């Protein structure tokens, strides 16, 4: 049980549990819009879009920011679990690398032969663009 006024937050990737601690607020990039999760939030299950999960230990400013390429969030009154695919800490991302990724994805899109390849390339572009936005913020 999280301490009073705090919410138990877990960030989990398929490989491992990345973070598990009580925090003040979590900012989650839901498919239908970002939302903040405070203690005693209404139970909610949401899919995530590529974006940044912000973790606020104190106050309303995120101290740690993780980029996620997608996934799910489960919220109950006392905890918030984020199942993330390919989470990366924003501070460790490299702008040059992301730009390269974006360029590669664009080239793949140009070379795509069928709808499936095109879809995959478009998803990668969306992820890379979201990464750039996360870096700019």
């Amino acid at each position: 049980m999280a301490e009073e006024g705090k919410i138990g937050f877990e960030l989990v990737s398929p490989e491992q549990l990345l973070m598990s601690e009580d925090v003040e607020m979590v900012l989650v990039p839901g498919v239908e819009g970002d939302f903040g999760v405070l203690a005693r939030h209404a139970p909610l299950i949401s899919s995530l879009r590529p974006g940044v999960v912000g973790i606020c230990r104190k106050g309303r400013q995120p101290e740690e920011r993780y980029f996620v390429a997608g996934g799910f969030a489960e919220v109950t009154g006392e905890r918030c679990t984020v199942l993330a695919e390919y989470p990366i800490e924003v501070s460790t991302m490299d702008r040059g690398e992301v730009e390269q990724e974006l360029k590669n994805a664009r080239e793949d899109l140009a070379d795509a032969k069928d709808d499936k390849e095109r879809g995959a390339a478009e998803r990668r572009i969306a992820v890379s663009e979201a990464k750039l936005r996360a870096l700019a913020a």
Partner: protein
Amino acid sequence: MASLKDLRNRINSVRSTRKITSAMKMVAAAKLRRAQEKAEAARPYAQRMQRMLGALSESVAGRPGVPKLLAGTGKDETYLVVLCTADRGLCGAFNSNLAREAKRRIDALIAEGKTVKVLCVGRKGRDQLKRTHAHLILDASLEIGRDFDYDTARKVADIITEMFDDGEFDVCQLVYARFRSAIKQIVTTMQLVPFSSAEEHAPGEEAPEEEGEAAGGVKPSTGGSYEFEPAEEQILADLLPRNMAVQVFRALLENNAGEQGARMSAMDGATRNADEMIDDLTLTYNRTRQAVITRELNEIVSAAESMR
């Protein structure tokens, strides 16, 4: 009787074999530890996904438009058996046990008049099934490779999902070895499509103990009705293929740990056998050597006698 030189050669060759098997054992032991850690680290994700899926399926149960991956196609004509094995051999009966269970299952299904397709993940399973069931093995079968990660599992899951969407099978079962300990792996069959969390075990295998998976520090869902964003059906459509990837990932991790464990004990046995053999051969060698010396002495003595 073998000559001294022959014996010496044999001893040397057994010694070098022993060196190899004991090195392999050590490597397997190190890899086993890593594989176990990896399998454990991946557990929280699978648990939480299970919990979410539980909440979702509870909420959509009985409604029309439930995704087919969850509800099934309503038929069970065509089965897809996914056999996960190792890429490499020299790990005792690990691969054979898996292949045997898969064969048993395939033959039983065929006897019931079902159509069976087989997807092999890992080279050894394919090699073993090729002899008897070559025509059933799908071209999409793949090797795991030296280092596998979530992406590998995802690739497998993508193949399965795509086949399902194309209506190529109705039921999908995954055969893998559940890691129990370094000397015990339990061949397990898990149903992937339609989704169910129940597992069957090969006959003669005891059911594994609960690994505290339900407990594991995870509180059961609060029973409160969740809000869903977007609608349940859409989340499920997204979640189910991912859950498949997670299940495959888990199977691969368990398999990997099992493979290393099996290799470790197989190589341990081999090393011990080599030791025994070296002892035996050394004894024979020494006996032969002494016999030769005795014979030569005898010859010298009798030669000296006759000179007198």
